[in-house]
């Protein structure tokens, strides 16, 4: 019998918090996907950068693979450890390290929850604008590793836009400080951006400096009932031309059905096939008058059949819950998830084709659509019918995903808009990236992580 490699890790880092408890292995060994059985070697919970660096060097010597672990709210299996890996959870490194008023930046450790970042920014009268439903659990390190998007991308862009500086430990165990919060820095390749969206395959983020911005004026939330899919982008155009939008989301009646089954209040007496929820700056009554004018126009055009407007923050939150509660309300049904994107210009044609494809291919399945339609991102969730076996269900969904890839390819779209590739979308990477691009990505990986210890088996 061979000696467990953990012995040498404990020798090097006697203080390191390390656990092999069965419950911990299961808890830290998976994300929000439920397809793989967690089977990590152990869980390490380092307390500082030096410990992280020692762990990575040890992994290079022993050949044990590392799975970086944040809030594990991912939906692509990027944080799954099913092959005897060492899970490195950054959750103990969860502090705010500093705020710079002149730079308007907040320096944080990677294990801090997104919501804690929001709160810390607000303490200083500013905001960190990246936001999405998992804010309470997801961590900034994971946000960076997946270039997380969310509900305010149409206004503020993805996580990538808000990373002023990164400290990373590469797969080779080197500590790098990337960009040092410089706004302008024309000195060659911006390596910071390689790590953003790298899904833990190049190294571990051990510190991040986030750019902050001023809070927008007071906002209001509109919910529209939309009678047909083609009207969605018309409504978007009408809203965007007259209101300062910070979000524009849609969902179907099936999505509302699941959220209501989860306890949300119905917004309208009449059922509508589609709904739009949009948030806009409403500093004064003029903005509300504009919103009414938009509604009147959309009503005349037959693009909307009804609408409600939030009258208080509490109502704004209730309306948001109709959209943000979808993922959680579907979770018990273990849905098959598609997270796809096309450029905004081709959304109408793409929607049409997708609707036809899904009606044709999934006649018997509950297909739940929602997403950030204002930035071309659609979430399509397929709910498993009770009478079908899980493996058969996944096989059927994968067959349809192949067809979806074809449509995406024709429209120049992407098979993963914001969830990442992880394990779930690995087979479809080639539908969105060329052979040459994937070869280059592998080459970059080989430079930064020559022994291939960082999250192997994910991405490609």
């Amino acid at each position: 019998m061979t000696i467990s490699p953990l012995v040498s890790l404990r020798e090097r880092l006697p203080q390191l918090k390390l656990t092999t408890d069965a419950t911990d292995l299961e808890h830290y060994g998976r994300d929000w996907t439920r397809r793989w059985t967690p089977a990590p070697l152990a869980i390490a919970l380092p307390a500082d950068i030096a410990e992280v660096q020692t762990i990575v060097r040890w992994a290079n010597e022993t050949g044990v693979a590392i799975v970086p672990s944040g809030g594990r709210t991912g939906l692509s299996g990027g944080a799954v450890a099913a092959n005897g890996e060492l899970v490195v959870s950054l959750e103990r490194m969860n502090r705010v390290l500093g705020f710079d008023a002149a730079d308007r930046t907040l320096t944080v450790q990677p294990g801090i929850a997104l919501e804690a970042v929001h709160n810390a920014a607000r303490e200083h009268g500013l905001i960190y604008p990246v936001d999405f439903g998992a804010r309470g659990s997801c961590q900034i390190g994971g946000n960076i590793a997946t270039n997380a998007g969310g509900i305010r991308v149409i206004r503020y862009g993805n996580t990538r836009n808000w990373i002023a500086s990164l400290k990373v430990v590469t797969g080779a165990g080197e500590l790098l400080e990337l960009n040092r919060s410089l706004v302008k820095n024309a000195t060659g390749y911006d390596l910071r951006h390689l790590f953003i969206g790298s899904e833990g395959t190049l190294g571990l983020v051990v510190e991040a400096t986030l750019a902050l911005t001023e809070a927008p004026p007071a906002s209001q939330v509109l919910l529209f009932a939309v009678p047909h899919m083609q009207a969605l982008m018309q409504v978007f155009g009408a809203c965007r031309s007259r209101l300062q939008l910070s979000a524009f989301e849609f969902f179907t009646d099936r999505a509302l059905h699941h959220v209501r089954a989860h306890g949300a209040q119905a917004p309208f007496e009449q059922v509508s096939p589609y709904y739009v929820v949009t948030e806009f700056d409403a500093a004064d009554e003029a903005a509300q008058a504009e919103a009414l004018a938009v509604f009147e126009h959309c009503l005349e055009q037959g693009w909307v059949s009804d609408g409600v407007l939030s009258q208080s923050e509490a109502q704004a939150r209730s309306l948001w819950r109709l959209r943000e509660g979808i993922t959680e309300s579907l979770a018990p049904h273990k849905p098959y998830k598609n997270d796809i994107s096309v450029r905004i210009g081709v959304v109408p044609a793409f929607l049409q084709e997708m609707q036809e494809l899904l009606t044709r291919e999934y006649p018997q399945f509950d297909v739940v659509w929602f997403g950030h339609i204002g930035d071309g991102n659609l979430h399509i969730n397929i709910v498993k019918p009770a009478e079908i076996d899980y493996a058969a269900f996944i096989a059927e969904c994968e067959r349809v995903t192949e067809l979806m890839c074809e449509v995406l390819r024709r429209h120049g779209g992407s098979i993963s808009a914001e969830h990442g590739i992880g394990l779930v979308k690995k087979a479809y990477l080639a539908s969105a990236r060329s052979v040459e691009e994937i070869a280059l990505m592998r080459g970059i990986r080989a430079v930064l992580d020559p022994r291939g210890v960082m999250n192997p088996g994910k991405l490609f």
Partner: protein
Amino acid sequence: MKILVGYKRVVDYNVRIQVKPDGSGVVTEGVKLSANPFDEIALEEALRLREKGIATDVVVATIGPADCQAHLRNGLAMGANRAIHVVTSEAIQPLTAARTLLKLIEKEQPDLVILGKQAIDDDCNQTGQMLAALWNRPQATFASKVEISGSTAKVTREVDAGLETIEIDLPAVITTDLRLNEPRFTKLPDIMKAKSKPLESIPLESLGVESGDSLKTTAYAAPPKRSKGVMVKDVAELVALLKTKGLV
């Protein structure tokens, strides 16, 4: 049946209250102002009674500065038939509010007055009770269920010991608790219709209300910040620390 609903404007429930640097009040400029949540529940209850065919006329009333008109329009958009705006630039206290509402009762002759149990800005919880006394009519406060039959109302009240059900003669004052109902969302077509609904403005001084404001606020201050916790290594250190702080 005519119902009069008190509908106060307050700093939104979800806004973090900030005290002005000079301690003269709380910051309201640039801050989201909304209907007092309990008053929203009061209006919702009145609208439901109208939808059940029990009430015919729902009147919302507020006492506040000139820019409260937009706030009353929200009440009209939610579904009230008419609005009355008693205009004053001064913040008033519960007794003055009750005396003012009594004037509106004399003018409107409602069969039922529904108010929030309290407003979330001053949390006084007095106006409803004072109004019932001044009007010399029954009161049912902290209502979580209201059933009207003929000229009586059966009201379930949330009290310390649980629930209490009482029957009162109308006209009466009912104040609402949180669980009475869940207010509806405001529909955009109704916001448009609300623009042409009647909204009457009455200057407070024209009502001849004797001021009951006897409290003078000397200063506002934010609650003291919670001091930071400390981490201890073991029980011995914890005990030692508690001892030095004189806590055990």
